[in-house]
């Protein structure tokens, strides 16, 4: 009895400590899995792609958020007042077309992300994400682009063309490196990767 009690409370303390309070996600996205073991960094510029094909932008880099939003306000002539800018800065998800941002901010209650229509990425010509990423890149001007932590979080069921347009928006801004948020997954046993882990013995060269 005492032993069982001890184990139970050990487990309890383990789970309490291991639990990380996760902020509730306003937009549900089921990410695909990959064998990658790198941990997704926090405070990223995150592009979310939902299964309906809606695109949201999250500016996780607090230091740059202000600069990015101001750059968008001037370049896209949104005509936002300082009060509206503060409101916009408080929003976690950005997911409205440029021409509807002002009217959204004038609503008495902040709009729920699920009700937003998403940043329009219809085709190569109507891709507002390109402009958003452009502002992001400008805010990192003078810095190495390695500091830009750009993540794409897509839903399993999102269609490929939507993802392609997101990639196009990055490419147009000369960004060729980004990361995809995935769920960790075990490397299948007796696969090439499991037999020759990167950084291990240079066994791969034997194949030449």
């Amino acid at each position: 009895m005492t032993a069982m009690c001890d184990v139970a409370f050990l487990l309890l303390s383990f789970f309490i400590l291991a639990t990380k309070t996760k902020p509730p996600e306003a937009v549900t996205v089921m990410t695909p899995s990959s064998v990658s073991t790198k941990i997704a960094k926090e405070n990223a510029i995150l592009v979310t792609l939902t299964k309906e094909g809606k695109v949201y932008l999250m500016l996780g880099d607090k230091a740059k958020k202000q600069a990015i939003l101001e750059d968008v306000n001037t370049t896209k002539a949104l005509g936002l007042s300082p009060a509206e800018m503060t409101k916009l800065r408080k929003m976690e998800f950005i997911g409205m077309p440029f021409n509807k941002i002002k009217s959204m901010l004038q609503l008495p209650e902040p709009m729920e992300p699920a009700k937003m229509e998403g940043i329009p990425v219809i085709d190569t010509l109507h891709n507002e994400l390109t402009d958003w990423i452009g502002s992001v890149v400008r805010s990192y001007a003078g810095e190495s682009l390695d500091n830009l932590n750009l993540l794409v979080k897509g839903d399993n069921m999102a269609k490929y063309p939507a993802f392609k347009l997101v990639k196009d928006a990055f490419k147009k801004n000369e960004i060729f490196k980004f990361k995809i948020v995935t769920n960790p997954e075990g490397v299948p046993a007796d696969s090439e990767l499991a037999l020759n882990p990167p950084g291990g013995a240079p066994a791969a060269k034997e194949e030449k």
Partner: protein
Amino acid sequence: MAEMDTSSGGGHKKGPGVKKTKKASTRVDLTPMVDLGFLLITFFVFTTTMSTPTAMSMNEPKDDPNNQLKVKNSGVTTLLLGKNDQVYYYYGELSPTDASAQFKSSNFKDIRKIILDKKKATPIGDLMYIIKSDKEATFKNAIDILDEMAINAVPPGHYAEVEMSDTESQLIKMTEQANGIK
């Protein structure tokens, strides 16, 4: 469960007629605490998300029409992602005459062996996988196929995503109809 042991068993024996003196026990009933403990355990077990998301790196090539990569026909495998998690593939170049014979269907379970067999049969310098995604392919498919490349340890630079041609999407449509995939 945890019961209080109030009997003074194992003590010195008292004679008949001698009244037992009741000792105040120092032991507390633990049952409610244990119950609560297990309740909390179940709660935390269910709410814990053990896996933190990982990040997969993507390196896109720069689109440069003057700098097209030339690859050997013998080392090329083209993987096409269709709808309903189907994968189609062909080796080399599609010949205009018997394209449909070259064109084979597969799925994400079997494609690993196909990738691996080709990798083993080809000198590493000539090896090239071309990935093309159909309009109906999902984001999951696009990530899964890149993950397959990682699982099969195909070195970076030996696989690339390319836009699908009309002939290929026609072939996919025909194969889908023949295989009854909706």
